[in-house]
């Protein structure tokens, strides 16, 4: 008797949609696509990702090319093992038995815990397809199958020529026979599947969250303080000691109550909803908001005059003046500085390359969060997405955030967190610290402490008994001063991680 094969779950689509999923960082139904979406099965059951068992029906493959014959189809093999909590809806072979007679909605018995599908042999599952509430993180992609090498090459070539499609995390293969399914007729899904109930997902907020966590991760290079901001936001947590600006952003993403930041939330709404990169229209919307209240009109006037080149003061001086004011009133909400930076350095790359001697560690990371939110995950530079472990980690954070916010009960296992520089520079990693100090010209950001042991002084030299291991300490301010003006790109980051792991 032949051994039954393990059930595999397949998502047929086209390379344009696949590229969009990689760029936005999530596998979603049609409503979650930021840019142009091409009709495929993700449009058939709104709110759900439809997966087929072992074989993709011919209709589903044709659907992926239905908008334009020049589209190239591909099949994503989905791995369910990273889903640690959640149910799905199945369709059985004897599909009519799966529905209530009166309201033709799927019966309760159609709901299956996803874990119970994992590792099952095909013979044990009589489901033709399953529907999982969107979105899924990219870590669920096991591999992508193409029907020919030419299609795979076209996918690679086209992705290389796009500024935000990183395919480094993908395993791809060619298997023509997956694309020659038996001819099928009839609808892919029962009619009622077009109106299945589902919890709606706030996609724009989810993608903004991905942008802000990515940027806070980037700025964690500047020191312990920045790293702690990243750790908090990636754990969806607040900290009572954090500044107002963190609370403003945090509450926007995690609180459902109208709070003290209500009047400023309209600005975050604008940044959240601005998903067109290089589009400066969001500045107009912010000016409108500021103009709508006499209390903020002066900020609008200043930003408008600045934009029309009527302010003669230099930018460095403008920022210096803001910071001086905030020093006089330490608890003042730094909205003017933040808006000025958004208007003045209007892209993530520019912020990353910007250095102002008066900025604090806290200001960099908070600005990073705001800029990241404005750009969204899809607007991050490709090199940042290609930070080791970043793409899959942030994708999972976004998926967990989306499902938590929409109360679907789904949760995904987090891949390893990307290594943080400050964690890597632990006092015990002497060789690594020495290498880092030399390679990144940060020698004066460290000090060496000899243990308190007896020694003899011989000709001016201190001689200890046995092996003495000195301890290295980071000089916080000096480290910050150096690192805040150092750009760590993906190649630097890989090099640092490699050295840290001793490879």
């Amino acid at each position, binding site marked *: 008797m032949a051994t039954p094969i393990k059930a595999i779950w397949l998502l047929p689509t086209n390379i*344009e949609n696949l*590229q*969009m999923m990689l*760029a*936005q960082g999530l596998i979603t139904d049609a409503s979650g696509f*930021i*840019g*142009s979406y*091409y009709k495929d099965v993700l449009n058939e059951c709104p709110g759900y990702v439809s997966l087929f068992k072992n074989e993709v029906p011919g209709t589903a493959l044709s659907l992926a090319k239905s908008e*334009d014959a*020049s*589209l190239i189809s591909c099949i994503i093999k989905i791995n369910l093992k990273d889903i640690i909590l959640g149910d799905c809806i199945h369709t059985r072979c004897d599909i009519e038995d799966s529905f209530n007679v009166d309201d033709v909605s799927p019966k309760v018995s159609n709901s299956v815990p996803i874990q119970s599908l994992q590792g099952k042999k095909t013979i044990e599952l009589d489901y033709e397809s399953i529907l999982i509430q969107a979105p899924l993180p990219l870590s669920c992609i096991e591999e992508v199958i193409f029907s020919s090498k030419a299609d795979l090459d076209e996918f690679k*070539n*086209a992705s290389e*020529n*796009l*500024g*935000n*499609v990183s395919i480094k995390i993908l395993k791809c293969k060619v298997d023509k026979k997956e694309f020659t399914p038996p001819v099928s007729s009839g609808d892919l899904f029962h009619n009622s599947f077009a109106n299945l109930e589902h919890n709606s997902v706030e996609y724009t907020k989810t993608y903004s969250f991905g942008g802000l966590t990515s940027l806070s991760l980037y700025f964690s290079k500047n020191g312990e303080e920045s790293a702690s901001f990243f750790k908090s936001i990636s754990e969806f947590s607040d900290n009572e000691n954090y500044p107002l600006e963190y609370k403003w952003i945090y509450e926007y993403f995690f609180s459902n109550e109208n709070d003290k930041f209500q009047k400023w939330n309209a600005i975050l709404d604008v940044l959240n909803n601005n*998903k*067109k*990169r*290089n*589009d*400066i*229209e969001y*500045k*107009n919307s912010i*000016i409108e908001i500021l103009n709508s209240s006499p209390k903020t009109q002066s900020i609008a006037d200043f*930003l*408008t005059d600045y*934009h*029309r*080149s009527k302010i*003669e003061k*230099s*930018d460095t001086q403008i920022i210096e003046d803001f910071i001086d004011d905030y020093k006089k009133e330490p608890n003042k909400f730094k909205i003017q500085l933040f808006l000025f930076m958004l208007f*003045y*350095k209007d*892209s993530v*790359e*520019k912020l990353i*390359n910007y250095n102002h001697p008066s900025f604090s560690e806290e200001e960099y990371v908070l600005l990073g969060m705001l800029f990241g939110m404005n750009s969204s995950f*899809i*607007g991050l*530079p490709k090199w940042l997405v290609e930070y080791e472990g970043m793409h899959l980690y942030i994708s999972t954070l976004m998926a967990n955030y989306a499902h938590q916010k929409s109360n679907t009960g789904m949760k995904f296992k987090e891949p390893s967190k990307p290594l943080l520089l400050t964690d890597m520079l632990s006092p015990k990693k002497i060789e690594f610290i020495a290498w880092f100090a030399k390679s990144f010209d940060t020698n004066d950001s460290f000090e060496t402490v000899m243990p308190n042991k007896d020694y003899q002084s011989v000709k001016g030299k201190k001689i200890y008994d046995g092996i003495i291991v000195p301890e290295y300490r980071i000089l916080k301010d000096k480290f910050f001063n150096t690192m805040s003006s150092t750009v760590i790109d993906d190649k630097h980051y890989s090099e640092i991680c490699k050295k840290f792991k001793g490879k």
Partner: protein
Amino acid sequence: MSKRIFDLPGIDELNKDQKAVLRLKESGQHLVIGGPGTGKSVVALLRARKFHQKNNYLFLTFNHVLNSSTKQICGIDLKSDTAQSWFYSLQFNLAPGDDFDLKKMPHKVDSNGREIQHSPDYDRVIERFDSYVDQNLSHLPATDTHLIIDEGQDLPVGFYESLQSLGYENFFIVADQNQQITEENSSRQELTDVLALDNDEVVELNENYRNSSAIAKFAQHFYTDKATPAPNLPDRASLDTPTFYIYQMVNSCVSMIHRESMRDTSKLIGVIVATETKRDSYTKFLSKATTGDDITVSSYSNESKQSVNIDFSMGGIVVLCDKSVKGIEFDTVFIVLDDLKVINNDSDAIKKRLYVMSSRAKEKLFLLRSAAIPNEVEELLPTDEKLMIRDNI
């Protein structure tokens, strides 16, 4: 002075029309029509990148400045040339032996029988090319080369017919009829016909990606072409509405341009003027004003016959006459209206020039006019405050 951030487009920045262009068959003849900022040059460059590894393409631009800019910012060692230089060399190199008369480009003649410079007599060129093909000359060019042509409307039909007579059959032309700046040019229909395309095979790009909506709306005020679709624009008041400054002292203009360049040294500031005299004087004023700063002021004259010495991959100030700016984009543009004149009551000609000039700006657009010199061009400017703000400096 900082490196300009030039990124490949993100997948979310391309619309379905542009993506369809990228999926066009590798071989054959393709025509893409669209207004300024609709991403014509972007799709042309992405197509060149597609063929780059195989090295079987040539990217042709209309002028030297655009060729230089395209080469510097495309991110690959682009195989490119200006259409006319390449065509002259092709004609020269194909002529067998040392017969100078054959190597020399045949030119059209005026009513006095004098040769018109830079105006090839394409009928005679085609005759020669046909004979070379008939003779099966050993040094005929590889006709399977993919010719990617930017601003294809500025080249006459004869140019394309000559190449077709040599056997070239892979054309990818991007064009905008409203930006014709040469006397010898091709209309959309002529390009469609010369490529033997049906009208529905011509791809139209309609969405403006380059300019802010305020700038695009301002540029549209000068739109004269009915054959090319005007870019779609949102309708709203804007922070970045173009500003028309009437200045008392030229120094105020120079200070303002200088200040803008200092604000962000990665930005490219374009100062567009109407005449060589103005180009010269603004280049001098700005060079003096920026002495000691990390700002480069560069310029180029079509008349100087020198190679383009402008680094478009870096921020800085570039002073150019309007005839050299086609296809180039700047973050901020200052248009100096002084010396721009309506000739023979042809206000359409000036509108076309203003259209090209103003649509070069991505983020900010300023117009400058001396208070001492009234200019009739001002009458062509929009009076609606939503389209243009008037102010004095």
